């Protein structure tokens, strides 16, 4: 057992499928979350509204909630007997629970703070003085958002995308609660590792776990290497 656990093994077909599925889930989640999180982060960074603190708290909740709690409520809310779940069934003919589409929705909620918070701080760093100057040059609020705010916040977009992708890759509790372990549909990497350990296949678990470890390091290195040094541009 102990000697076996230290040896690596080339991933088998089932594992390759899990890697592919995990990558797809993380990519779709990141691509869908970015356009949704951007206006939210912009509003949080620039609106004087009092409702802001409450919204910020809601956005940050996935950071502190146990994933099982989040997964449990998503399972309850999205099952075909509920309004939302029923709507999805009548539109697509499939249930949201224990499906890839359901995992995408769950991942978007689970990773929301990882996209919103880097964007929020990047937008906050866009000086109000520069936004005012753009306004006097004839730029409408929409124009200022797209042509002043977003270019100055590109560091935040890179950070948000990488963190969201990496965080979604590592998802476990939420998937287990509302997705289960269906090969090719909801069996993502962390579930595959869990299953390998349960069946005492430590070699297989090790190769996947080590891969995830390296991936996590590379993602964070990317953020610090390429997003960190542009700070002075934002400060203007």
């Amino acid at each position, binding site marked *: 057992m102990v000697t076996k656990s230290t040896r690596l093994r080339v991933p088998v077909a089932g594992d390759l499928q899990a890697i592919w599925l995990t990558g797809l889930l993380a990519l779709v989640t990141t691509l869908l979350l970015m356009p949704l999180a951007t206006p939210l982060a912009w509003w949080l960074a620039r609106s004087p509204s009092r409702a802001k603190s409450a919204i910020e708290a809601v956005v940050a909740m996935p950071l502190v909630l146990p994933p099982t709690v989040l997964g449990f409520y998503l399972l309850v809310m999205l099952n075909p007997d509920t309004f939302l779940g029923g709507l999805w069934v009548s539109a697509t003919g499939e249930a949201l629970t224990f499906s890839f589409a359901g995992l995408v929705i769950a991942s978007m909620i689970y990773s929301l703070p990882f996209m919103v918070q880097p964007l929020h701080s990047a937008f906050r760093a866009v000086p109000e003085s520069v936004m005012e100057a753009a306004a006097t040059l004839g*730029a409408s609020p929409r124009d200022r958002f797209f042509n002043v705010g977003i270019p100055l916040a590109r560091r935040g977009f890179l950070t948000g995308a990488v963190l969201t992708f990496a965080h979604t890759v590592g998802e476990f509790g939420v998937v287990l609660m509302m997705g289960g372990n269906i090969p090719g549909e909801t069996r993502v990497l962390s579930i595959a590792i869990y299953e390998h350990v349960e069946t005492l296949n430590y070699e297989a678990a090790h190769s996947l776990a080590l891969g995830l470890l390296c991936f996590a390091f590379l993602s964070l290195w990317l953020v610090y290497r390429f997003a960190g040094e542009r700070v002075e541009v934002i400060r203007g």
Partner: protein
Amino acid sequence: MSHRLVIDGQLERADFVLKLALDIDLSLPVGLMGATGAGKTTLLRILAGLEPGFRGRIAFCGEAWSDTTRASACFIPTHQRGVGLAFQDSRLLPGRTVRGNLAFAMRRASQEGMSLSFDDVVKGLYLADLLEQSTESLSGGERQRVALARALLSKPRLLLLDEPLSANDTERRLAMLAQLAIWLSAEKVPVLYVSHAQEELRRLTHQLIIMERGAVRSQGETAALLTRAMDADGVSNHHGDGEEAIVVATDADELSVVLERAAGTAVTGPSDLAPGDRVLIRRFTPDTSRRDLALQPQSKQDEPETE
């Protein structure tokens, strides 16, 4: 064409109240002067629509820009007012080159305002060698020139200039002042020009507004409001025929002195006068030199003030 600007209202902040009741004819450039904290920059910001806390009425050329006095309050947002504001602190768009900053302004320029060409502005403000540089690498004076160029190229209907030349050295400043004077008289665009430099105000503006602690202290012809300390020769040559005035405020930072006389307020340049000093001011030969008026303390007429 009438370029009437009416402002009537106030802006309250925690530590500052700006009360304004102005009716200005902007057919010729108008100067704005006053000590630091008098509210000059805030007045420009109100006109640009950057102070949503302003309560009252603003109308430019008969067009209501802001009116909180009626039941149906109106507020024209900054980007629709067609003002060009050269900020004192430049406020260039970071991450863009000088050319990028100017292009940003030109792409959004209205068609009705000034019509200076890109090449003229770049040449007149000494920007040709800077065009491809990033704004982060510029000096204070260079940033100011880009900010002024950007405001001019946005083709404004109303040009608001907040000490646009102050960070440049004297030689450049005088050359650009001459250039600006030519452009402003050719374009006939309404201008409000904030400055502490009396030669700039004298050169560019026809009317002058002097502000003090959030209110307008006086408004009148620039030549009549601005005086200048004369050198020893000038004073002694014109001994005896002066207008009596008393120093009401001095401003060590900005090197100007506010005088109160029978005909109203006047301002003079650097001197070591103190509030309460009695002085004589005299009109010298107006508009032919910088020394329009002579000034000396009454008590020591034989040792006249020098600059």
